[in-house]
């Protein structure tokens, strides 16, 4: 009698385990669904509002108070300029700093402290970088609310990410290549210059593109620097500028609901740019991984 009860208990407990496992799967699956659903909802509402507004005129016109004539040409040009300038400032400094940290600084309390500091900087809210940019570049260096100040701010914001990614990419280059180079009397610099850096380059470029695509989608850092009143594309570094995320920000706050459609259309354009940048990054990484010989 007792034995049978035991068996029953055992059976029950197995059944209970299976039941629990099913519940587990159900919970995690619904978490996944919730995440995906909201994303789809978001995309759907953006696309349904904005897709009709996208045409050649929208892409080539200047902003206007008349919604039917308004376009985002200066914002596209502004964003492209911002991107190029940010690259020009962030790559040399970021990669240079990473080379120093990975190859020359060594591993001690101070350099590790610095590393943690940089990693934490990568998580600082972008609005803080925006304020720092205003304080340093707009005011202190007296660059005004200009393209130069905006791109320097974005560069400063991207630096921590670029440094962290580039340092990691340099560190994973196998020791055997470094030793091979050093053993034939190359200096540390020659070893980095001719071996470590070239081998790490695809990973570094991927990291840079990802950091840049984040920077280019950000509104907060350039919120106080860019301006909706810059209705023509900048013709010099010290001109005011408009960028895609700023345009979205201004138009969504506009009382006329037609401008909300324009904002959605701008979001679509921005998303396309970001997706293609990430696509390029993935392509470079994939190419490097399949061609990698070690």
């Amino acid at each position, binding site marked *: 009698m007792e034995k049978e009860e035991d068996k029953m208990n055992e059976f029950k407990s197995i059944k209970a385990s299976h039941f629990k496992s099913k519940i587990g799967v159900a919970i995690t699956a619904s978490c996944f669904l919730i995440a995906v659903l909201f994303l789809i909802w978001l995309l759907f509402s953006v696309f349904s509002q904005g897709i009709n507004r996208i045409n050649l005129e929208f892409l080539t016109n200047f902003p206007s108070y008349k919604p039917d004539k308004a376009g985002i040409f200066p914002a596209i040009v502004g964003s492209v300029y911002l991107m190029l300038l940010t690259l020009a400032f962030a790559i040399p400094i970021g990669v240079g700093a990473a080379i120093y940290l990975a190859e020359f600084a*060594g*591993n001690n309390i101070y350099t590790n402290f610095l590393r943690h500091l940089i990693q934490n900087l990568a998580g600082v809210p972008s609005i803080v970088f925006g304020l720092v940019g205003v304080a340093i570049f707009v005011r202190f260096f007296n660059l005004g609310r200009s393209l130069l100040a905006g791109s320097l701010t974005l560069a400063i914001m991207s630096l921590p990410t670029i440094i962290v990614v580039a340092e990691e990419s340099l560190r994973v280059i196998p020791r*055997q*290549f*470094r*030793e*091979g*180079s*050093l*053993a*034939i*009397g*190359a*200096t540390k610099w*020659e070893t980095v210059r*001719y*071996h470590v850096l070239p*081998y790490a380059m695809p990973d570094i470029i991927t990291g840079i593109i990802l950091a840049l695509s984040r920077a280019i989608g950000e509104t907060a850092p350039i919120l106080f620097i860019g301006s909706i009143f810059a209705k023509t594309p900048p013709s010099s570094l010290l001109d005011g500028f408009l960028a895609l995320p700023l345009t979205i920000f201004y138009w969504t706050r506009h009382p006329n609901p037609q401008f909300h459609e324009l904002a959605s259309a701008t979001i679509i354009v921005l998303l396309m740019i970001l997706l293609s940048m990430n696509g390029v990054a993935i392509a470079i990484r994939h190419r490097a991984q399949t061609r*990698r*010989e*070690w």
Partner: protein
Amino acid sequence: MIGKILRLERKEEKQKEEMKCYESDKIIVRNLNVYYGDNHTLIDINMDIPERKITALIGPSGCGKSTLLRCFNRMNDEIEGCRMEGQIIWRGENILDENIDVVELRRKIGMVFQRPNPFPKSIYENVAYGPKIHGIRDKKELDKIVERSLKAAALWEEVKDRLYESAMSLSGGQQQRLCIARALAIEPEVILMDEPASALDPIATAKIEDLIIELKKKYMVIIVTHNMQEAARISDYTGFMYLGRLIEFGETRQVFENPREELTEKYITGRFG
């Protein structure tokens, strides 16, 4: 009085003799101690490594033979937390001296590693890299150096038609000979080899061994190996190491056939290790 003079003379003679061997191409190791962090990896190593001979360092894994090898070109500098104390005298200078320019030292003392480590570049670039960074820019001269080095490494015939293909497309044995060619291209005077054949198949190993014997004519070779047969086949002198100490050092024939130390005999007859 006479005794004193005699003693003085003898002292002078001894000094002269010491000077003589300091001037020769021997590598003289005196009281060498190496530490990795808190680990005392090499303990009181003393040895005179003769020139133009092949010297093999044997011993069980972890006995410190690779560490010793990496002292000769200061490769241990690249390992964080590694400290070398004592003297390694070569041509009247202490290799371990702080003021020694390791870049210059490594031009004269080349190294071949355990795992073939060609650069992921073309075969040509692999060999030409050393001469290039040391200032040779002339393409014709580089061509000559590449050909000469590849021939010296017995690889020329196999790769002469595909010099511009990636070195990674070569077999393991070819890669290792390429690494030897790379080391020879800068015309070193000593070549250090860290188990150069351990990652290779028997045929490739035989080729490398023939090559090493060939190299002896021009270079001093110090080779680390865990393979005792290899040491017996190719080396003129053998050092047996155990737990960070150099247990025995002498002519290979003597070490293998008539070891002075019991430990050496045990190891060679395969009773441990």
